[in-house]
């Protein structure tokens, strides 16, 4: 029969083979981080003979990893918080009021999802210089908020539109202002959408490498991804420490993913499907 190639065992094996290609390099990274460099060189594929934490110790001695880590946390948390505030205000306005320019504003934001912002990096560099934000974590925060707004406004507006208005009307009759209605009545009902936005934007700002590469030159202001650059530039012979660095850089995301894998996968695809 024509479709015999799609017989179950075949595609089963095929799917799991690809899955192992997806997972194996990550597993290799984590396992290698517990091996000394000489063990990696002689036996790259084997399990660690003795789990050593010396690699992590030497990583922390070589680069100010904890500083990178704190910078990353600070930038991501502040960015996500600001995205949530600015985007829900804007989305509430777009979805709940029918001023003539609302669709224009919506379209203006949507356009941002297609704009290749990296191509504007020279004017951005000069702008940041003029604002005296070079070498400041705020340059990154502003960029992540600005690049995060279009998708977040799209998701939140879509969600606002599906929500019944009755509760808001009731609150309005009780004399509540718009801000109070948004904060006390609407946002508590929006948790799923806010969670989606939070996850997407957290991944983006945690993992971004491009903007800190351009805006940050002070080693102590670096976030983890650019911190990897100094690690690999200066200590490239110590493979144990390199793998330890890569593992530590990825661990927060992997842990969060296993806590909320469904939300992660739905979150990241949601923007593209809508």
């Amino acid at each position, binding site marked *: 029969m024509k479709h015999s190639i799609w017989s179950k065992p075949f595609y089963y094996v095929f799917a799991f083979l690809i899955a192992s290609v997806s997972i194996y390099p990550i597993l290799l990274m984590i396992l290698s981080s517990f091996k000394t460099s000489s063990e990696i060189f002689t036996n790259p594929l084997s399990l660690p003979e003795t789990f050593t934490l010396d690699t992590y110790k030497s990583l922390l001695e070589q680069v100010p990893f904890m500083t990178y880590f704190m910078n990353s946390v600070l930038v991501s948390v502040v960015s996500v918080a600001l995205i949530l505030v*600015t985007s829900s205000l804007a989305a509430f*306005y777009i979805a709940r009021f029918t001023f003539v320019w609302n669709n224009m504003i919506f379209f203006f934001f949507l356009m941002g999802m297609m704009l290749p*912002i990296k191509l*504007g990096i020279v004017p*951005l560099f000069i702008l940041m210089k003029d604002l005296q934000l070079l070498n400041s974590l705020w340059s990154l925060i502003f960029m992540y908020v*600005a690049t995060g707004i279009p998708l977040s406004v799209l998701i939140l507006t879509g969600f606002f539109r599906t929500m019944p208005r009755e509760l808001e009307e009731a609150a309005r009759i009780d004399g509540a202002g718009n801000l109070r209605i948004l904060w006390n009545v609407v946002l508590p009902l929006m948790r799923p959408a806010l969670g989606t936005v939070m996850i997407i934007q957290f991944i983006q700002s945690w993992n971004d490498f491009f903007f800190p590469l351009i805006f940050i030159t002070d080693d102590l202001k670096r976030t983890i991804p650019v911190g990897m650059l100094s690690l690999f530039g200066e200590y490239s012979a110590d493979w144990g420490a390199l793998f330890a660095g890569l593992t530590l850089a*990825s661990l927060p995301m992997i842990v969060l*993913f296993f806590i909320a894998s469904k939300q*992660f996968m739905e979150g990241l695809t949601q923007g593209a499907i809508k």
Partner: protein
Amino acid sequence: MKPAMHKPLTLKKQRNWKRLTIHLFPIPALIIYGLFIVYPLFAALTYSFFDWKGIVRGEFVGLDNFKDLFTLQPFSDLFWNAFGHNILYFVLQMIFQNGLAFILAYIIYKKVRGSEFLKIAYFLPRLLSVIVVGFLWKLILNPNYGALNVILEKVGLEDLEKAWLGDPDTALISIILVNCWYGLGFGVLIFLAGFQSIPKELFEAGKLDGAAGFAMIRRIVLPLMVPSIMIMTVLTFIQSFEAFELVYAMQGSQGEPYHSTDTLAVYFYRLAFGGSAGGSTTAVGLGSALAVVLFIFISFFTALYLKYMQKKQVDL
């Protein structure tokens, strides 16, 4: 009583005031987005018409930067060299990332046991920072101690062992395949969502008509999958013409070896921030011209494609 007389008036005023404050709501988002996204892209356009000394703007030179970019050596050769690499980037990603993702999504949709595990497995690489992906694979592809060559040796394929990233013939393809490894899971999820939105009855109807296997896929599934195929194609197109981080992480800002992995975005980075033509001099004017060309190219083809697919969808 005085207070009672005043009360209705102030309340009304208050209401009016409240009604007006609503217009403040979109302002913060508009300002941040306008200043850091929209303005820089417009500014890049104007920059391309000027002569630049470092990051200091010189005189207006019209279209000279564009002319130099396409006629002056080595700029024009570097442009077409990188452009070809971007095309290859797009084509190989369409085949090895999106083609594979389509098949895998179909398998998951058919509900094999362990499909939840498969989804998670494919998606895992997407959690890593691109720079981590680049550095990790640089270690794996290392000719002496890297895992890939060791594995090839173990299974008796020593002949295939290579300096993957050191050889101009394999370096670019290696990078693109690493990118596919990174993006596969995202494609699977998009296509899976597409399959799940197809009404089950259609499959049943197709079966009754005697459509099976690939015929079923071609005649019933593919037309209904147009939206998700469209999304993945556009996203892949934009992403391959913006490809920068992975090349930078694995091969540096020169697109080693001998510019064999150079992409337009990496070339743009060199022009804008130094390292072009062997020196550390920047060429902001040329860089901006390149940015404008790339911007128009991406927008034009994205719009064209979206329009074409929309029409096709209506025709179906």
